[in-house]
């Protein structure tokens, strides 16, 4: 009798101590199955009905518990995989393919980022179609049909094809005026002021900030003298911005508009270089830059860099 208990106890607890964890579950499952067909006859041999009954009950419960554990483990794995997959696909293609709005570009291109920022601000569902620059895809006829200048990005919205990131942002801002953030002023006079500062970004901020960025990223050679000259030009522009931002909350007016948005990609990269001190030296510019870079729509754009 006591021998029977000892054998039973050994058989019950040995796998738990040795294996544990999920492997133990599988082991348990197999062992339970075997034990039901070995121990039961054994217990009959021991001829103690209560012992038999408790042993069978115990093994059955282990068996059921293991099966339930396996099923729930599988379910949790399935859930976490599908949730992370849908988050991934939502970030890049927002739901499914064959969206009406397609942006052809690549993550890391400032101009593509500019267009992406406007799409996220306006909460427009779109698909990003990556153009393989390394394979010279942007110079092949199929892409040149979308942008004869062979540059990214290009937008496709149903029948409409557009290139130039600043034309794309304006198109998106107008077409989806009722969705998301208002990026274009409604009032004609306010719109005119906004347009002035959009041109300032285009003509004054972009050329110098772009060159500084290219030098900092070692895409273009530029010695100390060249950098100093460019930083002087940028400082002159930022001086005007500093004054403007004392009179107006944002560059284009009292609310965030494309006049601010167009700056963000170059600003983002410059803030990672030593040129950031030019922005930090001017309190209103500094606050404005921090505001722009912390916008949720922009954070969605930069999170794509991590894929």
């Amino acid at each position, binding site marked *: 009798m006591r021998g029977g208990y000892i054998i039973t106890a050994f058989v019950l607890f040995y796998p738990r101590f040795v294996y544990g964890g999920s492997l133990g579950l599988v082991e348990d499952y197999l062992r339970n199955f075997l034990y039901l067909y070995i121990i039961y006859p054994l217990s009959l041999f021991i001829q103690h009905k209560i012992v038999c009954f408790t042993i069978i009950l115990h093994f059955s419960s282990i068996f059921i518990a293991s099966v339930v554990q396996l099923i729930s483990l599988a379910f949790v794995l399935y859930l976490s995989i599908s949730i992370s997959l849908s988050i991934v696909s939502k970030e890049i293609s927002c739901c499914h393919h064959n969206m009406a709005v397609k942006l052809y570009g690549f993550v890391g291109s400032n101009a593509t980022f500019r267009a992406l920022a406007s799409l996220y601000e306006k909460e427009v569902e779109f698909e990003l179609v990556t153009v393989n620059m390394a394979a010279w895809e942007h110079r092949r006829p199929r892409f040149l049909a979308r942008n004869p200048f062979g540059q990214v990005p290009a937008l496709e919205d149903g029948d409409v094809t557009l290139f130039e990131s*600043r034309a794309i942002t304006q*198109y998106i801002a107008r077409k989806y005026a009722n969705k998301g953030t208002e990026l274009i002023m409604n009032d004609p006079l306010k719109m005119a002021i906004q*347009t002035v500062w959009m041109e*300032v970004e*285009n*003509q004054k901020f972009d*050329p110098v900030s772009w060159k500084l960025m290219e030098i900092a990223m070692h895409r273009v050679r530029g010695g100390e003298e060249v950098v100093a000259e460019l930083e002087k030009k940028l400082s002159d522009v930022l001086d*005007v911005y500093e004054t403007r931002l004392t009179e107006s909350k944002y560059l284009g007016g009292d609310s965030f508009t494309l006049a601010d948005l167009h700056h963000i990609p170059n600003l983002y990269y410059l803030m990672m270089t030593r040129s950031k001190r030019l922005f930090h030296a001017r309190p209103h510019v500094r606050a404005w830059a921090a505001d722009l870079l912390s916008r949720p729509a922009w954070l969605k754009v930069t999170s794509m860099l991590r894929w």
Partner: protein
Amino acid sequence: MATPVTVYGPPLSTAVSRVLVCLLEKDVPFQLVPISMAKGEHKKPDYLKIQPFGQVPAFQDDEITLFESRAICRYIADKYPSKGTMGLFGTNPLVKASIDQWLEAESQSFNPPSSILAFQLVFAPRMKLKQDKALIKQNEAKLVKVLDIYENRLGESRYLAGDEFTLADLSHLPNTQYLVEKTNRAELFMSRRNVGRWWDEISSRPSWKKVVEMQNAPSQ
């Protein structure tokens, strides 16, 4: 409009002439206030109040003060949709998008090399500055690539944004005028059939001829 609008700056400036041709296209009366760059009038505090970068042009009407020539042109085109040449900035969003696209192409791709070439070939000699041969060569190469693209485009449509004359074409007038008429690089444009045809059409518009007259008038 009781008072005519005011434009500040010399007509010889490419940016100023861009605004002037737009006002003429829209039949909007204006007065031109000369700003002598030589005398540094563009850097005086009074002027800096209306143009904080100290550049020309600046624009004033009874409602607003503006700067940046392409912003001024868009304002004029939108404010007077039924006056003068219609559809300069599009009558519907799709056309507007196409115009924006070619306006941006002008800003980003055509303007930089053509400006540098115009400065080096026309203004530098006038100002007795030494020409930078390497810079000229580099920018000519860039401009050639852009004009090849224009050649294709203008084979598909009469004007850049479509079959109507728009701000996208207008914006090209100032720099091209200098390169075609005041340098020996006219063949960059005229050797290309479609570009040549397009230039002939847009430069012979009465509005542009009037601006050229203003530019050639005896110095103020």
